[in-house]
């Protein structure tokens, strides 16, 4: 029996199963969606399930024809996912509660359809991890050193350009004003979004694992460099036009502009890796 045939044959059972999952996650997933809406660090959450869905769609032709071979191992994964959910629920740990849904789906797919189907679906499944906001304790562990690093680099660059600045922690001090490099400017916001984007982009643009990783890894320095640039430009603005210029419209606009620039750089890396591949004559187009 193929996947397409099984979906048709067991349609009522699948509807019941979806109902069971909806019942269990009915109080867990909606607050996560509200986080996407309220926390600017995770506004890309809305796009992640769509991209994952698109990954499934592009594989559908192959998936539908794949023979199903239910695997008992899946049940063990389902049980693990439910244990993860219960323990996280008892400890109000949102990241583990929410990500247990992904583990559960993986288990269900293995248990009902087997390894072949799972292999085809593991990328869209893994991609869903990007929709789960990180626990703040982990987030901060990355954000604060990053914020300090970005401030240091920017101050050094401003000094090289002849701007008189001093740094104290995440505060940049000009003769006339001070600027605080806030959480948002640390680059972690664009880092997470840019990583999500890089994974999606790399999977569409190339089939080579090495090239995919090249693009994904490049997202990290790109996010950091573009954010440092943002801080530097803000610093120059603050120096010559006063703090108001750096904080108002420009600040909002710079966020978007910086992300757009990061995307362009990411695509450039992708194109570069592709060209290299043509030269070597081993490309797939």
């Amino acid at each position, binding site marked *: *029996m193929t996947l397409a045939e*099984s979906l048709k044959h*067991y349609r009522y*059972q699948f509807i*019941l*199963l979806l109902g*069971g*999952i909806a*019942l*269990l996650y009915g109080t867990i997933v909606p607050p996560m969606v509200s986080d996407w809406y309220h926390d600017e660090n995770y506004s890309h959450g809305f796009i992640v399930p769509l991209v994952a869905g698109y990954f499934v769609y592009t594989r559908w032709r192959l998936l539908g024809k794949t023979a*199903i071979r*239910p695997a008992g191992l899946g*049940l063990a994964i*389902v*049980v693990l996912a*439910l244990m993860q*959910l*219960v*323990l996280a*629920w*008892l*400890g*109000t*740990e949102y990241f583990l509660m929410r990500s247990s849904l992904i583990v559960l789906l993986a288990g*269900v797919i293995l*248990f*009902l*359809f087997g390894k072949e189907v799972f292999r085809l679906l593991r990328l869209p499944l893994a991609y869903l991890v990007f929709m789960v906001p990180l626990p*703040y*304790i982990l987030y*901060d*562990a990355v954000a*604060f050193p990053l914020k*300090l690093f970005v401030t240091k680099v920017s101050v050094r660059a401003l000094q090289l350009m002849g701007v008189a600045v001093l740094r*104290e*922690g*995440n*505060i940049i001090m000009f003769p006339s004003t001070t600027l*605080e490099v806030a*959480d948002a400017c640390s680059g972690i916001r664009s880092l997470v979004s840019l990583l999500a984007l890089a994974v999606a982009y790399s999977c569409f643009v190339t089939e080579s694992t090495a090239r995919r990783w090249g693009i994904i890894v490049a997202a990290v320095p790109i996010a950091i460099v573009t954010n440092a640039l943002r801080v530097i430009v803000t610093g120059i603005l603050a120096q010559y036009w006063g703090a108001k210029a750096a904080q108002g419209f420009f600040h909002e606009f710079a966020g978007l502009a910086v992300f757009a620039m990061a995307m362009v750089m990411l695509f450039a890396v992708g194109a570069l890796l592709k060209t290299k591949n043509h030269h070597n004559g081993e490309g797939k187009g």
Partner: protein
Amino acid sequence: MIGNRRFAILLILLVGTSIYLTTHADLTVPPNKPFASFPAAFSGWQMDAQTVFSSEVLDVLRPTDYLYRQYVDAAGHRVTLYVGYHSGGKESGVIHSPKHCLPGSGWFEASSQKISVTVPSKTIHAVEAVYQKGEDRELFVYWFQAGHKTLSDEYSLKAAEIWGSLFHRRRDAAFIRISVPSAGDSSVDMAVARHFIYAVYPALLEYLPQ
């Protein structure tokens, strides 16, 4: 063939877990006495000021009861005490880690280490951290109190909460933080903090459920 048995197993697991999650409610354990009656003076320390949080702050922290006071001793040492008690019931929030809260307002962690503080008949496991904001330095000593246990990291607190909830339907816990504005010498700051903890701990135990 998948077979109906596999669907049945999955449904039973899903519905069973749902039932457990919706019916498992932790007990709400109130503090032994309202914090408002916390002594204003004890062994040489005198209350100097008390802060009442705005409703915005309370909406975020959601403590069942809290205490935010400044105490001074005869030598003029100033100490800020924050106690946030969370009853474990549905309406009380989770304890926020200071690692998240403090840096949010521009304070940077200059150093942090685990220490133990000796009080009568007990050793408290705590964190000693120095935070810096511009020129200002402040020493923080904090720990989480879950029942009779004192915990110095967020992960043990989570584990204690899960364990308590699973077996005793209790996850009430308190966050206790003492801060001392730096006098320039960190060993002096720490001595002030230890001195204060020694004096305040017996009173704390009277207020926190064991």
